[in-house]
């Protein structure tokens, strides 16, 4: 039954446009179904066929993985070899650096100089010195005052006589 509302839509030409997405969805789904069924028909694949196909894909992946692993392993061997070579070169560089530093070491320089008959000269000329500006003829004043109490001096004198070791640091100069 066609209602007046439908008639109005048909007249305005809007109904067809609204139905397009629906038809497209149906057409897309249909294409996949049709294509898969067509391929299955042509290849005549049954359930086992599908299984073999899947297995083949897995084998290809495994082979690809193994090839990649072999390549990486080969690279790792190459890296290890180069690292070993690098270590050797570093060791050689260290040794050369040590040789260089040793050649410039003061001990080696002096040794080489001595072998060549070279010697460092030392000047031996002295400048004249000036007389000390102190009047050593000045009269000697009174004896120094000793603030040590008399009893301490007496004890020191007694101990000095008995022990003989109370003179301290006389050698300091």
């Amino acid at each position, binding site marked *: 039954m066609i209602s007046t509302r439908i008639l109005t839509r048909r007249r305005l030409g809007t109904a067809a446009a609204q139905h397009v997405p629906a038809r497209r969805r149906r057409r897309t789904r249909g294409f996949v179904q049709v294509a898969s069924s067509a391929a299955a028909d042509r290849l005549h694949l049954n359930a086992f066929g599908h299984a073999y196909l899947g297995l083949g894909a897995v084998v290809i992946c495994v082979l690809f993985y193994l090839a990649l692993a072999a390549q990486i392993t080969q690279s790792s061997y190459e890296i290890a070899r180069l690292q070993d070579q690098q270590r050797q070169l570093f060791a050689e560089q260290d040794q050369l650096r040590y040789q260089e530093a040793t050649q410039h070491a003061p001990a080696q320089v002096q040794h080489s100089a001595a072998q060549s008959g070279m010697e460092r000269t030392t000047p031996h000329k002295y400048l004249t010195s000036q007389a000390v500006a*102190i009047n050593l003829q000045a009269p000697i004043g009174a004896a120094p005052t000793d603030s*040590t109490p008399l009893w301490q001096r007496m004890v020191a004198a007694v101990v000095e006589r008995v022990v003989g070791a109370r003179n301290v640091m006389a050698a300091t100069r």
Partner: protein
Amino acid sequence: MASGVFGFRPPGRLERATAARLRIFTMLVVAVLLSSVVWTRLAYWQVLRHAQLAQQAAAQYREVVELPAIRGAIFDRHMTQLVINTTVYSAFVSPDQVPVGQRQQVASALSSVLGVDQATTMQTLASGRKFAYIQRRFSKDKADHLRSLKLAGVGLEEEQQRSYLPGLSPGSTLAANLLGFVTYDGKGQYGLEAHYQTQLAGTPGYISSYRDLANREIVLGSHTHRDPIAGSDLVTSLDANVQYAAEQALADGVKKARAESGSVLIMDPKTGGIVAWADYPTYSANNFNRTPTALFKDNVLSYVYEPGSVMKVVTLSGAIDAAKIKPNTIIDDPGAVYIGGYRISDWDGANHGKVSYTYVLEHSLNVGAIKAMQAEGHKSFYRYLQSFGLTQPSGIDVAGENFIAPPPGDKMADSQYATTAFGQGIDVNMVQMLAAVNVVANGGKYAPPHVVERIGNRINPIMLQPQRQVISPKTAQQMTAMMQAVVQYGSGWTSRVPGFELNQGGKTGTSQIPVKGKYTQNVWASYVGFLPANKPRFTMIVVIRKPNVPGADQDWTLNDGYFTASPVWKRIAQAMVVSWHITPAHS
């Protein structure tokens, strides 16, 4: 009620049911007990022992390889490398993998390349052991030669080693006592190597990977990799040429004086940077494992001694700075004074009469030094000891500083104040003493002593600190003139460097060595000085321990600082004048 022939009554329905329940219950209990045993055991392995087992499992499949960090190098002020990392090799053998028929050939080859005893090597090869070292730590040349021979069962192991520059004799390396050494497990011992262990060592990295059953690395497994961070290089204030000259002069001086040992320390007066640090006898840091441990001790920093008359520089500086005396103040020196019950005399015991303080320093008179201290007062004297850095460690950036603190000022007896004034009864190390005298050379400022100027690309923070003013520049100038007089007219005459006789300052020191509380006839002889006096380029102290100059048993003054230490000072100063192009015109 029915009963059997023998009185046995078959169980009824209820009893049978009860018995069945009992059996089921018993079975359940047994099952629960058995399962709980299993569960308990599971819990034991999975919970209690989890960590240990996980660790053991990880050890089987996981491998962590440490990547050692490169240890920082050490340079002198001219960027001469003093310490270099080198690769050395150790040869090992797996005797069980050497076929019997090849043993003779392998032993012969090892003997010819490494110089090891062939018979001993044959014994090792015949031992059937799994592993044995043949020789440790030899050079790359030998390793290359050995590698080219492709000997069965013989392997090489790479190791890192610190190599130091050759020193004066084949048995020594340059600045060994200052630099220290590094053990085979990478730990710095003594000197700079120990003090800067953290900065020099860096941070090791690692590679963590997985291993299969055959112990091969699983290349596609997950790896964790952290790069090592190399240690920082140290740039020191040392001068390798001056260091060598100092070691040479010191060795000759110690031998000539027939002394027990000697040390030299040279400082840059403006910065406090150490220019040379020499000890004799010394050792080879390249052969530390074959060196007696007694030689490792660094006498510059680890040996405390009584400085003797060198201390008079500090005493007189303090008294002048406190305005209690002047260089030309005249005092009376009768040759001896009594203090605290002790009779303290001058070195010659003679009455010197009226003398100035300049004369006191020139002729090293103990009584004059005591009078200067008394004029200044105990409190002020002690305060100057503190300011000159003699009551605390120097704090220099080298491991192993030894220090004996003097008693607090109020605990010191009068006699100890008196003896301290001329350098006995107080213990210091050479770094403390040189830094104190350097105050005079540095215009009255205390320059903190240090060896390292740059750590990596950073300046040593100690160099950025302001220097404290200990005495006024005027006092320093006066004291410099007095020390010049010591060289020109006094006990320092043996240190005169040709061309600088009027322009160098110094002071001798000789102090008796106490043993078990009593002073002996053995002495520490020292000399400290700087040059040129008006614009010092270096300050140097030389200490000779227990000199025994021929004839000294008759005349002890032959062991004096002016006779043993001062000539060494002069010889090194001459070398520095040439090496640093110091000219009288420059001064």
